[in-house]
């Protein structure tokens, strides 16, 4: 029980105890550390999502994607009928999301930079590159442009991880990473 009649007291006039002040100070400093870690990573880290984005009509994005596919298709992926496209390193690379596929399949060289353009033709989709586990939200009407540097030769899956209707679980794309020439 408090010594003073409790009901008369006003909370902001109360004294602070030392142990509480200590914890509040530690917690506040930890908050600053976490805040500035995010800022710091923009200067030193290699994984930052690009801020470059444009409004775009889905048809325009589809045209650009088709132009890239027409120019750089090297083969078809197995029996899927999907084109495998191998644009030159450093170039603009397009991948579009639509119900329910990622189109086209890309073949990229390890260790080279690509400007990857992502957009949706219809609803929202989720670009989930596996097993790297890089996850980016894709919107219709917005074109996100990021610079990507593949590492590690192999096949990578692109799973859709934003719910997009009944065929959502069939929406899988692929990126082949091959050794640089």
């Amino acid at each position, binding site marked *: 029980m*408090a010594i003073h009649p409790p009901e008369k007291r006003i909370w902001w006039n109360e004294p602070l105890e030392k142990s509480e002040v200590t914890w509040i100070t530690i917690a506040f400093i930890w908050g600053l550390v976490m805040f500035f870690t995010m800022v710091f990573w923009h200067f030193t*880290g290699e994984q930052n999502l690009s801020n470059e984005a444009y409004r775009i009509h889905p048809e325009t994005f589809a045209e650009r994607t088709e132009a890239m596919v027409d120019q750089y298709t090297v083969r078809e992926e197995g029996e899927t009928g999907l084109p495998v496209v191998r644009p030159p390193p450093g170039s603009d690379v397009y991948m579009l999301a639509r119900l329910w596929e990622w189109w086209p399949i890309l073949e990229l060289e390890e260790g080279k930079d690509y400007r990857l353009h992502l957009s949706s033709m219809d*609803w929202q989709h989720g670009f989930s590159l596996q097993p790297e586990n890089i996850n980016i939200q894709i919107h219709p009407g917005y074109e996100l442009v990021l610079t990507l540097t593949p590492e590690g030769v192999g096949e990578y899956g692109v799973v859709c991880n*934003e719910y997009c209707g009944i065929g959502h679980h069939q929406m899988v794309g692929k990126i082949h990473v091959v050794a640089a020439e």
Partner: protein
Amino acid sequence: MASIAHTGSLPRAAEFRTCPDTGLRVDLAAEKLIRWNAVVAVVFLAIGGLFGLLVALTRWPAVHLLPAEWFYLALTAHGADVLLFWVIFFEIAILYFASAILLNCRLATPRMAWLGFWLMLAGALLANVAVLQGESSVMFTSYVPMQAAPHFYLGLILFAVGALVAVAVFFGTLVIAKDEGTYEGSVPLVTFGAIAAAVIAVFTITSGAIILIPTFLWSIGLISHIDPVMYKVVWWGMGHSSQQINVSAHVAVWYAIAAMVLGAKPLSEKVSRFAFLMYILFLQIAAAHHLLVEPGISSEWKIFNTSYALYLAVLGSLIHGLSVPGAIEAAQRRRGYTKGVFEWLRKAPWGNPAFSGMFLSLVMFGFLGGISGVVLGSEQINLLMHNTMYVPGHFHGTVVAGTTLAFMAITYLVVPLIFRREIMFKKLAQWQPYVFGLGVGGISLFMMGAGTLGVSRRHWDITFSDAPVAFDYPGTAFLMMGLNGVFGVLSALGGLMYIVVVVGSVFFGERRTEEKAKAEPLLPQGGAAAVASYGSEGTLKLPGTITLVAIFFVAFVLYYFVNWKFLSEVWPLS
């Protein structure tokens, strides 16, 4: 708000009874409203929980229960029923309790409160009908341009308006209590926490209305286009910020239970209230947590908002993380459990489900929900986790292990005090928080494990068996999802135990008469005063709490930096 409180007529002649357990005056109109809101909340918990079980059994790869169409329907219903309807109905009950009951006051305009109740109920039922009709499997978040049936949005709008009316009644009651001088000085801490929850509720529910009304108009063809990024910014002003109603409410519930079971008082009223104030000031901007890997939003905006402005709202939670167990330790030491560092904890009333539920909620909210939330909400780390199972793993740690378990725990006090019935099936009730807690802790942990391995949330078939392009998640991911299923069943069992105890007690429990209350007091000496009046413990030496907080802090820091390490290993992107 005052005008709302006084509409109708002159102050109504409220009928009161005096509670034999607490000595508080109880407005019978408020009591009835608390009962009905709580009962409806529990009904939605039962419905939503059943859908949750179906979801868990479908995502258990070896079981894979529902077909795809039903899975997405069940997932939509699960989200709406538990995250909105169960939690908010229960919160309205808490608001009426923390205002009318704790302040010894009559409830402002019970008629408006009933209007709010019926609006909420009609809205919740309408939304459920829309979902069950099958044309609104758009998930709880209903991201445009995917479209639900118009009455899905209409149901949510009605629910939101009803909840706003209820919050207005709460504020009106505060005004009346002040006017009529039913308390002196500052309001009790639990009421203060409820005020924080209510202020946040006004902001978040309004955000919901602001985005859902145009979306409704779009669904009936009056508006041609809703921008999908704008939709998310505003929708999450409701969707995430409304989780902060839950945080404020369940922290208030933690203090309330500690007070009512142990007579615990806050270490320092100033510190605890300051922490609630941080919630009010900074939790609102959490919409950013869902926009960290979105196109068209700058990193500056993301960093400022996702961190709640330099993590000041997280600071609030870290303060409660010390002050809630600290209050318990101080009360226990006052009661004579002073040996060593942890006698107070060992000799705590672990057989009282109100206490055990509350303490499990506190620990799991901190370790599972809290830490993972901060990590998930770091701008760049979100790249590793966005829309993976990590996300539901995080929020089952906060909303289920935290909020739901805390609300379940306080039910064991609400039933005897407000429903005036004895708890039936005492053994079952004793085990319930442990079974549910273990189940939910497991769900949270294994979902986060699966998410770390990349498994997508909201996904019917992670084997991609009928996809044209093949992809295989690693075997451990399937193990994680299987374990998630097992613990999902365990949580459902814990939920069922809760429903059985509560429904049994409320309808068939022995009446708690005045004689009974005098013979077997529910609250310890000073318990009623601790919950219903102002007063600090004044800090004692608290070695146990400081040890617990130190363990928590080390775990937090390590886990935080481990995730930056994970991030540094993925493909460079800029």
